[in-house]
């Protein structure tokens, strides 16, 4: 233990000393400055370490002047204070490093002093145990901040400093008045002493008013809505280093004092105060940032919002009527949030210093040039936006589950805000990752901070999975996720990474094999592992450059899916769901469609947050059939899964996300990841809804599935990009699965699960083939291909069979799903859905032909003359996937038997709804279908016809490509003859009214309307200091009037 006064004393003395030194020698002043910060960092670190290891059991009470608490001033350093001190000096040190790297403002000696005293003031604020002393430190912090803000090079900074100063003065006047009144009322200035006197709660109106006065002052400093205009201006105008220190450290000290004050002066209405201002600030600021164009102001809004959340948390944390375990969780969330925000935000502000452009648009391309910049930017953005595994994510979970049931609307509020945060942060991220390289300044501190965040995430993750929340997880999964990340370090060689990934996956299959049991979890686990293995094989097409984080992210997606399907509670489902979503976001973002990735991120996040809200509403987290607990949780939880299945009208992310993600990843995205939505919906039907209660909801979902199938198929018909076409097709097919699931009959679930596997096979095959084609041809634009059957026969054959399966034409595996589905539908009597589904599958023929024709048939284009067969890994995977396609076509019971075994464990589904008959094949209540016979008959008669034809036919000559009857003309070039563009234009004229992009227009409208409202709302920050001051007075009046709370 080190006496905390040493920190303050030494810092002060060295500030004075620097004051002398800077006159004589600049270098020594710098050295001394850094030494002091390093010393403070170490000493506060020692104290912090002492606290967390338990060496220091009690809070340190420092009696200054040797006087016992009420008489003299004393410092009271507990766990929180020590932690905060450490945080402050860490950020100060890193900020200073950045300052030195970037260049100091002149005259630098003074700047150093101000910087030192700013961090000292913040430390003092958090350490002090005396209200008046608090005021002194507030002023130290403020004046240092005024000076630093005003000194920034930007001319606007002066204006910001002035506003800051005016509002700051008012706020400190409030604090001072409150403190003095408090002295008058209680006869003491010592926090503990006063707390002791007011232990029973504040009962007199005057004391309440006094407390509110102090709290009002602190709330102004904490930048609550709407008295935060000054803060935003400061964030926008001031030197980012200063802002980093302010937002990252100083404000947190204010926050600590706020919490302490509220704790020591137990105002009954504090909870509502915090709820109102915290919630309002949080939500409003998150939305105000929606369309903010200035980077720094955007970060400012985000900071303000985070503070709002913290205030909200404080409200719950200090509310005595909340259960103690919840308060403990709240406290933990608070710590994580403070850590996350301090580091993430200061890192971002420092990064903002590196880019000259203030506008977001100016950030285009900054990520492309500099990997270090990219690393720290991504880490910071992800941690702030609450992406796993960063602390912000866990904080969100803790926070949500700590909120008492009667305040469930707060959950909605928090999640809504979090969603808005994802929207604008990832818009920012998207713009930064778009475009070609752009020069950015040097930055040493942000990478350090980011590494710190990363390192700190490890114990947090560990804690979450082990003691604190105890998210149940199979240890193998965590181990595998860890190993997956290590693949990154194999670095530049893709071959090496590929082999290592295969190795890791092999190990994963080996270690997870025991969990493949005949139940829903085991079924999907098998799909994930074996399917993933096959698709991973296909990801190495030669020498093409892929980001070195491709394979780690790929494996993380895979293993998080494994973790997801092995979950035993909803919480674990959520956690792995998020990991999967964000890892896949990274992968999609590696493709050319950054905007697509953004939309994907937004929709995923919306779904995931809805799911979290739904899980919160559930009475029990365990995955077991329970009592029906209202439709709302089911709807909310399903939303996440529906998003991943891209069920209409939540589908608009899918086209571009599938179409523009790296070709190597799309098979996984479509083949397996969309099935996680199926798995999840299954869980909802089984465990959240009961068989009876969810009937209406399931019918609705059935319609959603049918409409998805119909509209996506229709859109696929008019799509001219190979992968986007397949994307629509994939989404449409998953719509069928959803119909099957919603039927909730044995036959329906048979259909759904069968189609799950089947869809993986043929859509995996198609996307793998597409990867090969695009790799060879260099484009995914259909009209530019054609005639490739002559160059890529194997790929054609694979695609053909996959398409036949996709279309559900009998002899191959695809038909079984169709047959089961329609049988189930008719059995259940959902006749309108049957019609729609039938029609959709007819429409599928249109695009099936389109794929085959536009890519493989027709005329081979001149530029594709030298195209070769797909690379061997892809060809291999094509062959591998063809086997089940054919085998299942003849023997569907090879798959149906396991499915029945899975379903037999589910109550009400023991009887599969069909049986085998020797002659009739599979017989349901309604009809029958003999797959084996059809296969034999078709193949047999086809061969017969072929032989007969070969024997009897005329002399057949294979002619050249342009030897066609062309009205006697000689065609000039293939492109004259190839009909690839606008294949279905005639049909488009017929269904124009059906393919009107209504849904995407609605979503875009929502996005823009929210943006417009936010922009309108932001106008309250007029930039006029009078107005700001008026808000301050108004808010103070409201606080004083409404929250006295004492009758």
């Amino acid at each position: 233990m080190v006496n905390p006064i040493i920190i303050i004393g030494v810092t002060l003395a060295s500030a004075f000393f620097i004051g002398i030194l800077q006159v004589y020698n600049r270098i020594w002043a710098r050295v001394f400055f850094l030494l002091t910060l390093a010393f403070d960092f170490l000493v506060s670190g020692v104290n912090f370490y002492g606290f967390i290891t338990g060496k220091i059991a009690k809070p340190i009470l420092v009696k200054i002047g040797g006087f016992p608490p009420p008489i003299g001033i004393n410092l009271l350093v507990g766990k929180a204070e020590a932690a905060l001190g450490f945080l402050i000096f860490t950020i100060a040190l890193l900020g200073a490093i950045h300052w030195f790297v970037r260049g100091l403002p002149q005259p630098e000696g003074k700047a150093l002093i101000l910087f030192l005293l700013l961090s000292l003031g913040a430390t003092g604020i958090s350490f002090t145990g005396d209200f008046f002393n608090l005021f002194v430190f507030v002023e130290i912090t403020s004046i240092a901040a005024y000076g630093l803000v005003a000194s920034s090079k930007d001319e606007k900074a002066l204006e910001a400093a002035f506003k800051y100063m005016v509002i700051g003065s008012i706020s400190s006047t409030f604090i001072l008045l409150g403190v003095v009144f408090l002295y008058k009322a209680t006869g003491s200035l010592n926090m503990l002493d006063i707390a002791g006197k007011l232990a029973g709660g504040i009962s007199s109106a005057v004391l309440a008013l006094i407390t509110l006065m102090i709290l009002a002052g602190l709330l102004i400093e904490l930048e609550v809505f709407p008295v935060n205009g000054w803060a935003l201006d400061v964030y926008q105008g001031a030197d980012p280093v200063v802002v980093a220190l302010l937002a990252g450290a100083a404000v947190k000290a204010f926050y600590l004092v706020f919490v302490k004050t509220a704790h020591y002066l137990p105002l009954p209405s504090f909870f509502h105060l915090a709820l109102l201002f915290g919630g309002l600030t949080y939500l409003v600021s998150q939305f105000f940032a929606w369309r903010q164009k200035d980077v720094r102001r955007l970060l400012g809004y985000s900071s303000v919002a985070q503070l709002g959340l913290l205030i909200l948390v404080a409200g719950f944390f200090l509310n005595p009527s909340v259960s103690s375990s919840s308060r403990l969780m709240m406290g933990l969330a608070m710590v994580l949030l403070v850590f996350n925000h301090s580091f993430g935000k200061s890192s971002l502000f420092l990064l903002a210093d590196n880019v000259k452009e203030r506008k977001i648009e100016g950030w285009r391309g900054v990520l492309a040039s500099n990997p270090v910049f990219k690393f720290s930017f991504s880490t910071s953005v992800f941690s702030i936006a609450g992406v796993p595994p960063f602390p912000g994510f866990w904080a969100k979970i803790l926070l949500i589950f700590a909120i008492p049931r009667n305040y469930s609307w707060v959950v909605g509020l928090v999640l809504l805000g979090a969603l808005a945060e994802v929207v604008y942060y990832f818009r920012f991220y998207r713009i930064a990752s778009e475009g070609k390289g752009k020069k950015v300044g040097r930055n040493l501190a942000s990478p350090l901070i980011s590494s710190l965040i990363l390192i700190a995430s490890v114990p947090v993750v560990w804690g979450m999975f082990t003691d604190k929340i105890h998210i149940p997880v199979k240890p193998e999964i965590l181990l595998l996720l860890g190993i997956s990340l290590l693949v990154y370090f194999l670095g530049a060689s893709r071959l090496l990474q590929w082999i290592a990934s295969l190795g890791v996956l092999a190990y994963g299959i080996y270690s997870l094999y025991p969990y493949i049991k005949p139940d829903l979890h085991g079924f999907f686990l098998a799909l994930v592992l074996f399917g993933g293995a096959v698709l991973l094989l296909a990801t190495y097409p030669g020498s093409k450059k892929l980001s070195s984080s491709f394979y780690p992210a790929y494996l993380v997606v895979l293993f998080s899916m494994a973790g997801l399907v092995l979950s035993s509670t909803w919480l674990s489902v959520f956690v792995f769901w998020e990991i999967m979503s964000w890892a896949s976001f990274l992968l999609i973002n590696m493709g050319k469609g950054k905007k697509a990735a953004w939309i994907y991120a937004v929709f995923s996040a919306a779904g995931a947050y809805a799911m979290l809200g739904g899980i919160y509403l559930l009475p029990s987290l365990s995955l077991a059939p329970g009592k029906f607990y209202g439709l709302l949780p089911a709807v909310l939880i399903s939303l996440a899964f529906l998003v991943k299945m891209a069920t209409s009208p939540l589908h608009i992310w899918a086209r571009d996300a599938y179409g523009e993600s790296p070709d190597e990843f799309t098979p996984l995205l479509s083949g397996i990841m969309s099935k996680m939505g199926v798995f999840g919906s299954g869980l909802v039907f089984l465990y959240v809804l009961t068989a009876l209660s969810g009937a209406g909801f399931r019918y609705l979902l059935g319609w959603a599935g049918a409409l998805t199938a119909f509209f996506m198929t229709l859109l696929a018909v008019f799509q001219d990009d190979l992968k986007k076409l397949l994307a629509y097709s994939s989404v449409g097919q998953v719509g069928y699965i959803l119909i099957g699931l919603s039927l909730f009959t044995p036959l329906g679930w048979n259909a759904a699960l069968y189609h799950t596997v089947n869809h993986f096979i043929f859509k995996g095959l198609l996307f793998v083939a597409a990867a090969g084609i695009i790799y060879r041809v260099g484009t995914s634009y259909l009209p530019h291909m054609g005639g490739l059957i002559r160059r890529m026969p194997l790929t054609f054959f694979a695609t053909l069979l996959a398409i036949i399966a996709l279309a559900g034409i009998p002899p191959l595996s695809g038909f079984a799903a169709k047959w089961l589905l329609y049988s189930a539908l008719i059995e259940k009597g959902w006749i309108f859905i049957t019609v729609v589904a039938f029609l959709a599958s007819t429409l599928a023929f249109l695009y099936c032909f389109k794929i085959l024709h536009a890519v493989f048939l027709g005329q081979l284009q001149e530029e594709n003359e030298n195209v070769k067969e797909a690379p061997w890994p892809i060809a291999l995977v094509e062959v591998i996937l063809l086997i089940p396609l054919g085998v299942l076509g003849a023997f569907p019971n090879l798959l149906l038997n396991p499915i029945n075994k899975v379903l037999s464990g589910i109550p009400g589904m023991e009887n599969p709804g069909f049986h085998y008959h020797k002659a009739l094949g599979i017989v349901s209540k309604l009809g029958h279908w003999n797959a084996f016979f059809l296969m034999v008959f078709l193949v047999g008669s086809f061969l017969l016809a072929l032989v007969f034809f070969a024997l009897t036919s005329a002399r057949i000559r294979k002619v050249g490509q342009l030897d066609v009857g062309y009205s006697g003309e000689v065609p000039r070039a293939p492109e004259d003859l190839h009909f690839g563009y606008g294949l279905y234009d005639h049909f488009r004229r017929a269904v124009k009214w059906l393919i009107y992009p209504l849904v995407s227009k609605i979503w875009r409208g929502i996005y823009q309307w929210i943006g417009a409202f936010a922009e309108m709302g932001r106008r309250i920050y007029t930039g006029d200091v009078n107005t700001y001051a008026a808000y301050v007075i108004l808010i103070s009046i409201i606080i004083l009037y409404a929250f006295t709370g004492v009758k």
Partner: protein
Amino acid sequence: MMWAKIFYAFLALLGGIAYGLFLGGVSRKITARMQNRRGPTIWQNFIDLWKLFRKKTAISHGVMFYLAPMFRLVGGAGTFLLVPIVVGNPYLSNFSFGGDLIVLMYFMVLGCLGMALGAAESGHPHAPIGVTRGLSQMAGYELPFVISVVVLMIADKTTSIEGIVRAQQGGILHWHIFTHPFAAAAAFISLLGMMGSYPFQVVLAPQEIAIGPPTEYSSTFLSYMFSGRSVFAVAKYLLFMNLFLGGASNLLWAFVKTFVIFLWPLFITNVFPRFRLEQSVLFFWTWPSLFGLIDLVRIYLVR
């Protein structure tokens, strides 16, 4: 038993092809008579088939082009064989044990798809134009057809063709054309589309895109397609007979009923001009579908 079945089915198939060719000739004759000319002989299609079959040379554009006629023939024959001619008669029920109506409806596509692929490989621009038109039109007529089929499935609580036929036994008024007249109307209108009869004749459209998909086909290839199409048409007549006209109790009845069904598109085709594609799709999606919906809603309500 199995081999016997196969043998009888083979016989039926040959009969089907012959019947289809015969009906083709009849239709040419009737058309000619309606146009006040003599027309070719009723057996003209046999002559054409033989001529094509025995041509001396043929050209091929590639593997799919080569295989497509086989697909067409097998698809047509398979469809034919999945439909029982006389339900309950072991010799004339073909391979109806292979699958029910759902199987059949998907099976019907096989031939068209194979054909489409082959045609597309020919590299002639008319081929994909015709194919896409055909597929689009299929999307059109499939809706009323599906509606009426679903009506029958729901009404009879079975998806098997034999089951549907059995449900119609017991008098002419049990035929679905009388019990579900609107559904039947929808189906019969969609039959026009399926047969490519005149208002819906954009697929082959000889005046416009030569002959459409099979533009490049010649000689033996064409003969295979020709026979495939003939038997496919017969399969459709049989299917409609089974679905709406109560099936057949013997071959004669089957002949009569299919002939009646055959006349319906023939008469329509000769007196109508042609729809454009979007017109025909929208037509199918409106009137016949609405007809079908009437029965569908009725079934839904009284179920």
